């Protein structure tokens, strides 16, 4: 039992990311309101960012900015600094997420301007009419 508990606790970051991701995916598929779909999309993307950043964590490590003192007087201890690569990758992913969200909102605004609604059933009825 304690083994199982330890196993579950030591990997809690993965459980959280999976749950968040599934919430986002569910919202994207089943919600009828387009803004809610976009909110789901943002949760979905954020969960992946969480996943990446969490795999770069090292216990008792600090942010990846090298200490001047270390450079001059001693070796740079690798275990002393967190893994910088996931942070870099996720900076890119965040920007992509923002850009997609922006384009998504612009499209929603255009849909609203054309059809006067962003609820899927009403919208499809309106589209079929015209």
């Amino acid at each position, binding site marked *: 039992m304690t083994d199982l508990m330890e*196993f579950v606790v*030591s*990997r*809690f*970051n*993965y*459980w959280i990311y*999976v*749950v968040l*991701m*599934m919430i986002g*995916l*569910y919202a994207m*598929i*089943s919600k009828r309101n387009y803004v809610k779909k976009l909110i789901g999309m943002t949760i979905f993307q954020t969960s992946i960012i969480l996943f990446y950043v*969490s*795999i*770069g*964590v*090292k*216990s008792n*490590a600090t*942010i*990846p*900015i*090298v*200490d*001047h003192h270390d*450079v001059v007087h001693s070796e*740079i201890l*690798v*275990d002393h*600094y967190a*893994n*910088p*690569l*996931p*942070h*870099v*990758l996720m*900076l*890119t992913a965040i*920007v*992509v997420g*923002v*850009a*997609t969200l*922006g*384009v998504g*909102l*612009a*499209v929603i*605004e*255009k849909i*609203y*301007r*054309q059809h*006067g609604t962003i609820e899927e059933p009403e919208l499809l009825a309106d589209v079929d009419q015209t």
Partner: protein
Amino acid sequence: MKVFAFCLVFVTGVMLVMTAQDFPAWGDAHSAPNQYLSTYYIQHTYRDTAVPNIVTAVLADYRGFDTMFETSVIFCAGLGIAAILSFGPRNPKRRKRLGLPPSAEGDLIIQTTTRLLIPVTQLFALYVIAHGHHSPGGGFQGGVILAASFILLSLAYDLNMALSRLSDRLALLWGNGGLLIYAGIGLICVALGAHFLEYSALHAILPATDSVMARSHAMLGVEIGVGFTVMSMLFSIYTQLVSLGSLEDGL
């Protein structure tokens, strides 16, 4: 649809949870991603580039090509949103039905506070860009803070006031300019006979630098380019979205 979505999500979730058993534990310093490349970056970055902030160095130098396209993504989004919202029928009746409130009278207290706040915000943004080598920060973060200062202006006064400071056209120009600075620095490296974005070649034209410091200086250059593009494009996206593309009323 709901049942289908639930089944799909459940299956995907179970697959991902099952796989997580194979993952390293939280905070494991000896897992594969925390070894190999990560070790190289932590040990060599300062020697290779003279930049203590490893994230900045990896972002702007080792993986600088990614960052250039990340800037292009923001640029593309700004351009795309302007394109999307400037089309389509403008039905006046529907526009009225949107019920955008008439611009409220500006509040004296808010406007005065904003006037005091904005210069400080912008100064801080410049600091974040310029000090990205030594502390958390860089082009994106600084650019976002700069854009926030303009957005603050449009919230405290109105959209026209903010647009009179940074118009739509000017924003596009700045966005282009920022990307051009980034790609241009890369192209200068090519012209000097090195690979694209190989900043160390720049020591031939920069006074009093060796090839390591050239990397550090060039990184500042590209961060400035990124800052320009992010600032102008985020502000442009904001103005387009709040005014439904008309750039007239809205917030």
